[in-house]
């Protein structure tokens, strides 16, 4: 059925490796694949699977060590220029010139692609109206929000009508509204100009919208099929569990330890279970859990992804078996219990208080009068798109940025002026897992433990704990820069926990990390919360909001809503959408807000 003429991309036995100072990495390992024309093909896989390498190779930016790669019937090694003139490539960080306006950026790309001047006006008009950027043509690209930047990047990649569009994680860090708009643009181009699209994505719900999906892992292709085929393998293996006796987090922790359970995930009000085997016409049975209700449910695409990766275990990757994980952590929970009893004494206190906080940069208000309180032992989420002001608010809470107005209190102190002992009670994990890149894991842990005043036996114990708990021992003497992203995240998390803080600040802890590492991360975070640690977390993954006890949703520096995820979702229940997801809720909130503003302006 796949005749060569239909294939817009054809790879035969492609291998490519990179030499690192210490080792070499086989980024692509003997890959053969065909991508059909006229459709959207999704490229998914954990971090370091080789997705970006593959896309760069297809764009003629990298040469394979061996094998043959053809794009649009042309060999990428022999004709890279010709290919580049016919494709649009949008790398993860698109090369926008931040000091040029939107219009100037588009002109630049039109010049680079030699678009005749008389054709430009109509093309610009179409792209600007599609991306809804027309009102902003005179704005500097650097002043656009994250979502708008991505839309502009896409528009620039489309200035010369390409036959093939290669998009590398175009929606990472983009808010749901902008994501939806990006998809609209891609779909419109697909229908009107019959282009083909190859896109990599970390959002598996996006992969579900593709016509064809390629799952990569460790430089190899695990499977290529339509999303429906992926999901079919999961038939009769997915269930929703619910118990009135246990909290969601408790239930999730219990169920993930049960035999036969491949994955347990909080899904809105229930626990979404993935079983190792199909159970036909019945539901899995678990003993000892009171008042447990289980019903079958439609498999998600993500379930297939997780199942495929978990049945392909690989010690060198971020994949670990949750079962051993859970056992290990139950052992270490003894010392947490002591802490718990200490903390639970005054459990109803508000440990973090934010009162009408304002942060101004010049005449720009990044945060305009936000108020909320966080109780001891809560997981509190700060949700919002890039540029919503959550990072600014977060930095004010940690004392990294003074507030222009209003009050910020963490455990009774303003951390900006607080004494060293007050800061010893908080842990902080910065965005992008900030670590000393040319220091080894050991040196990083040694430094952070010392910075928190640990020494002697206690220091030794905590470092050993970090190595065991986060399974870092294998990489003990590796530079943190050479670690896979999942391990960087673990190391950053371990560094933040060295001194057993009472309050934990996590800034985008799951950004760029694949679904497996995200699960592992939330598993640990839940355990910490159970032991009484207060956790403040920012995220732009809307589904992660379900892990929070309460959360605040921000947009343009203001509060859209505050409450528990259940309350927020139930607020937007409607006849068409009886079970709205967090993402639906977010979009609905943003839209009602925009409407309100319009009404006021009218």
């Amino acid at each position, binding site marked *: 059925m796949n005749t060569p003429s239909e294939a817009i991309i054809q790879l035969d036995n492609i291998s490519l490796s990179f030499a690192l100072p210490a080792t070499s990495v086989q980024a692509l390992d003997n890959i053969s694949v065909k991508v059909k024309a006229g459709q959207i093909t999704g490229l998914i896989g954990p971090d370091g699977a080789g997705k970006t390498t593959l896309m760069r190779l297809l764009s003629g930016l990298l040469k394979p060590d061996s094998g043959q790669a053809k794009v649009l019937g042309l060999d990428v090694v022999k004709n890279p220029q010709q290919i580049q003139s016919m494709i649009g490539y949008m790398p993860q960080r698109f090369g926008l010139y931040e000091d040029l306006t939107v219009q100037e950026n588009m002109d630049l790309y039109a010049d680079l692609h030699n678009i005749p001047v008389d054709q430009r006006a109509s093309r610009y008009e179409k792209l600007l109206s599609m991306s809804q950027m027309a009102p902003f043509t005179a704005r500097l690209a650097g002043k656009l929000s994250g979502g708008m930047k991505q839309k502009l990047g896409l528009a620039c990649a489309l200035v010369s009508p390409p036959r093939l569009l290669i998009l590398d994680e175009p929606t990472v860090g983009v808010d749901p509204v902008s994501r939806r708009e990006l998809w609209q643009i891609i779909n419109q181009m697909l229908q009107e100009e019959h282009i083909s699209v190859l896109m990599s994505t970390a959002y598996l719900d996006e992969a579900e919208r593709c016509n064809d999906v390629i799952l990569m892992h460790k430089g190899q292709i695990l499977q290529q099929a339509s999303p429906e085929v992926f999901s079919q393998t999961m038939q009769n293996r997915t269930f929703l569990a619910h118990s009135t006796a246990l909290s969601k987090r408790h239930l999730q922790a219990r169920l993930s330890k049960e035999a036969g359970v491949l994955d347990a995930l909080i899904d809105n009000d229930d626990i979404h279970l993935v079983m190792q085997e199909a159970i036909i016409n019945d539901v899995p049975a678990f003993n000892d859990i009171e008042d447990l209700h289980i019903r079958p449910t439609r498999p998600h695409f993500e379930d297939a992804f997780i199942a495929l990766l978990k049945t392909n275990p690989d010690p060198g990757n971020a994949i670990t078996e949750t079962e051993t994980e859970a056992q290990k952590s139950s052992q270490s929970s003894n010392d947490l219990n002591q802490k718990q009893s200490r903390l639970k004494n005054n459990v109803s206190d508000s440990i973090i208080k934010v009162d009408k906080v304002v942060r101004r940069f010049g005449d720009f208000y990044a945060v305009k009068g936000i108020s909320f309180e966080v109780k001891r032992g809560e997981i509190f989420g700060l949700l919002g798109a890039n540029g919503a002001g959550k990072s600014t608010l977060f930095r004010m809470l940690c004392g990294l*940025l003074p507030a222009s107005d209003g009050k910020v209190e963490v455990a009774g102190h303003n951390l900006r002026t607080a004494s060293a002992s007050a800061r010893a009670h908080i842990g902080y994990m910065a965005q992008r897992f900030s670590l000393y890149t040319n220091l080894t894991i050991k040196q990083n842990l040694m430094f*952070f433990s010392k910075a928190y005043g640990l020494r002697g036996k206690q220091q030794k114990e905590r470092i050993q704990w970090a190595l065991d708990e986060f399974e870092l021992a294998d990489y003990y003497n590796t530079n943190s820069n050479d670690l896979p992203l999942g391990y960087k995240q673990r190391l950053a998390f371990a560094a933040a926990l060295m001194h057993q803080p009472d309050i934990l600040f996590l800034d985008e802890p799951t950004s760029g990390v694949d679904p497996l590492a995200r699960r592992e991360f939330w598993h640990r975070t839940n355990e910490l919360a159970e032991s009484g640690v207060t956790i403040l977390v920012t995220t732009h993954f809307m589904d992660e909001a379900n892990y929070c006890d309460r959360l605040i949703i921000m947009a343009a520096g203001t509060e859209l809503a505050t409450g528990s995820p259940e309350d927020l979702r139930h607020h937007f229940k409607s006849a068409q959408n009886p079970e709205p997801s967090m993402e639906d809720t977010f979009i609905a909130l943003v839209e009602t807000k925009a409407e309100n503003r319009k009404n006021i302006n009218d």
Partner: protein
Amino acid sequence: MFYQILALALKEFQAILRDRQSRLVLIGPPIAQLLVFGYAATFDLNNIPVAIYNQDGSHLSRELVSHIAGSPYFEVVKNIQHDDEISPLIMTKKALMVIYIKSDFSNEQAINHSSHLQVIVDGRNSNTALLALNYIRTIIINFNQQFLKTQGRHPPPAVLKVRSWFNPNLLSRWFIVPGIVALLTLVVPLIITALSVAREREAGTFDQILVTPLSPFQILLGKSIPGVVIGLVQGTIIILLTVLWFKIPLLGSIGTLYFGLTLFLLSTVGIGLMISSLSITQQQGLMGAFLFLVPAVILSGFATPIANMPELVQDLTYINPMRYFLIIVRGVYLEGNSYADLISQFWPMTLIGLISLTLAGWMFKHRMY
């Protein structure tokens, strides 16, 4: 509290020494500069190309020419026969100087007991021209004295007997090489500290440190220790090389030298940290370091005497720590100065160090984001 500062300092060392590029910065430029300044930079002129235009041909004139040719300062590149050869030689820089001995040179001498000698010199570089003229003047004076002696006549009424103190042979290397100690201990510690905070800002680790119980003051101290230590190690290596390799006499006490070096490093590191607290990217840090370095070296008296500068600029040099340290280095090396002799240099440097470190601390606190 001290434990945590040491932890930070240790981490700084690890970060610097484990990075190939920063290791190169530590080793490469110092060696290159030591070689350049030790060998290439000199105020002495040797083998000055000179052309002789001797129309006289007498015994006297040949005697004079042999004095010039025999001097280590001059090298006769051509014996000229015609007037029109002079101009191209100077124009093409084949000769810096042309000595013209007219045809009646010896005759006139015989009649008047004195005669004239013309020197044509390339004045495009006034400094070299003056130096070359000085040398030729000395040769002529020697020649005259010797001539009078062989003739059994009285020497001229006043004869100059020069005795140069501290540097008997007036070797410019003795002047320049000790200055390198100051130059190199300025450059490397300044760049290291200027980049240290910016590097962490770029990597995002600075936030991570700020939320630890470390206070800004502790962070500042932890960040200044590596600069001072690296400066001391580097200073030691350079001092050893100047004495053992370049054979520069070190007359004063090592203690005085190191006391001055430590004070100098404190002010250098203070300025480096000020630059660091202002810059957000490493590029800005490097730019800031160079914006300070170039005027600091020029206004230090390293190459050109401060006394030659306009008065306003001379006043400006008082805020330059390198100015004081150069006097200390040269004083200790060549004069054998003691603590007491250098008090007037120590206290301004201490003041600059204290002010710059305090300012850096203040800027740190007020620009933590």
